[in-house]
């Protein structure tokens, strides 16, 4: 059994990319930030995000969210949004991925403690210091009540989450899975000994057990030095999103192949077919 990729969305420094499987064809929409009326890119690598970039519906909480949540709900809304209103959302599993997680909010919250002492601790900031909080925002915003998990596997995080979602479908643990990978990158990331790897961004994939879509994914293998470094996909380093653009090419490229990637001794492969 393989999983059907129904929809895909990407938020990057270039703008928004959205792909939908419609009537046996793939409809791809690419929108640059200026077309959306967005402001200039800031030190996060993105313009200031607004809910209207991702959805026409009212989203009052959006402005109060941290960047990771804005990216997560933005990618989720682009991917699942109004195209799938009939989906039984009690059964949609949500798999998140992030390497940096809440690091930027951690630093912001910690700075308030350093400057103002314990009395300055902000509950509004503190709740976003959990790396999985963006998944809570997505679940609330889209009404998803399936199993919710966050995978952090370094630069493989996004691919690992997608592979885990394919497995959920293959093993009939879920009938629909929304995968959302996000990285909020700012000054705090630069303070780590991990070298800077790129800017903020996000992506989302919607998988189902049946129906028509962009393509099919299956035959997941999580390995340990099995594939070998010489055949790994190249990818621009971008924390947990490192292999996302290479995977996008594989998914939207129109040919069947085995997608492979790895970091150190950890490897992942999955079959991509049309």
């Amino acid at each position: 059994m393989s999983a059907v990729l129904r929809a895909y969305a990407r938020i990057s420094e270039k703008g928004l990319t959205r792909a939908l499987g419609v009537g046996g064809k793939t409809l791809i929409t690419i929108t640059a930030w200026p077309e959306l009326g967005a402001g200039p890119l800031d030190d996060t690598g993105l313009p200031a995000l607004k809910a209207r970039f991702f959805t026409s519906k009212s989203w009052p909480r959006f402005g109060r969210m941290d960047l990771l949540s804005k990216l997560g709900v933005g990618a989720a809304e682009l991917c699942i949004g109004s195209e799938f209103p009939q989906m039984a959302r009690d059964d949609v599993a949500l798999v998140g991925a992030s390497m940096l997680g809440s690091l930027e909010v951690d630093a912001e919250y910690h700075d308030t403690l350093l400057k103002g002492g314990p009395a300055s601790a902000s509950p509004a900031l503190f709740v976003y210091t959990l790396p999985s909080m963006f998944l809570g925002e997505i679940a609330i915003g889209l009404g998803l009540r399936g199993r919710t998990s966050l995978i952090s596997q370094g630069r493989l995080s996004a691919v690992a989450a997608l592979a885990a979602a394919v497995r959920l479908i293959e093993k009939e643990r879920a009938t629909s899975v929304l995968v959302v990978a996000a990285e909020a990158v700012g000054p705090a990331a630069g303070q780590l000994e991990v070298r800077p790897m790129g800017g903020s961004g996000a992506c989302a994939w919607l998988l189902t057990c049946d129906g028509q879509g962009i393509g099919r994914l299956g035959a997941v293998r999580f390995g340990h030095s099995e594939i070998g470094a010489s055949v790994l996909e190249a990818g621009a380093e971008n924390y947990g999103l490192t292999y996302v653009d290479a995977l996008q090419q594989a998914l939207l490229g129109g040919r069947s192949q085995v997608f492979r990637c790895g970091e150190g001794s950890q490897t992942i492969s999955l079959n991509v077919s049309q």
Partner: protein
Amino acid sequence: MTYPHNIQIASAGAITPMGLGVDSLWQGLLAGRVAFSPADKIRPYVAAHCEIPARDASLNLRRCMALALESTRELASSGEQGSLRRALVLASTKGELDQWELQRAMRVTPLERGIILSEMALELAERLGVNGRVLATSTACASGSFAAIEAAEMLEDGDADEALVTGVDGLSLFIEHGFASLQALSKRGARPFDLARDGLTLGEAGASVLLRRGTGGGSGLGRLVGWGASNDANHISGPSRDGGGLLLAIERALTGIDRSSVVAICAHGTATRYNDAMEAHAFTRAFKQPPPVFSIKGNIGHTLGAAGVIELIISSLVASSGLVPATAGFERQSPDEPALDIVHMQTRQVGRGLVLSTNSGFGGMNTALLIAPGEGP
């Protein structure tokens, strides 16, 4: 009896406010010991800090190491490590936050990277010689139990022969002041499910379990025979009022199970007003007559990312021994909440059987694990 799943809990290790080792925790719970100590006005009570001597690693990593090594001691003596693919799943809400916090305050650059959970997991795996998949998971206060689900499915899918699940979180001013700002901390010490409960008490701990497919030889502590997870989709820092989200997780865990064979529930039982009420609703909706319920957070506090792993271990011991520890601090339940049979005052003998263990966390996360007795003599 045949269950939908059969994952052996081969061995376990823990460091908790009760001390080092699972036995000190279990004996402390059976004796009704409360490991809280007074702190200050902002955080009136905290569970005792854990003490593990080490020189070359940051605090949380030291705890992880001690735990994981204790859990793998059995393997180290078995002489079969080379032929087995062993995975590691690390669960934590904040990783090595304490070191990051300290280094930032001292303006150290670059900062150690242990606050990145996957980096912490890789370092731990390297030190332990883990030769399989390594990942970190974080789902707020359900992190530990979700890590057990991830590991169990990894084993069922044939991605590993054994999986080490480690949950860990330490106390730090960052976390304590954050919970204080949410007005979630008890002024008197956590009293799960009690009418007069006024919040949680934070604790720090780490725990590990080694999971294997099937019986795998040896008796083991218990068996993970069912699991489920869900999201409330309701509020980022509060549970659903009617327990509907947790109920979904429980229903998923109990699929194909005779509910009358569940002898006890190890509740999340944080002692916050909303969590405990939510659980009371969920339990009474899942069972016509809920089995006896207990919480260990009145003894060791809420240990965040470690809680799910610790409660999996305790649930295994309850399932195998038939002994249910009393819920410290509980006297009587609110008449406004669905009535539960809360085990209190003294340990109760319920007989060997299935134990349901539940966890919930910010972001609407819910998990339910079902544990059967070990297959030993």
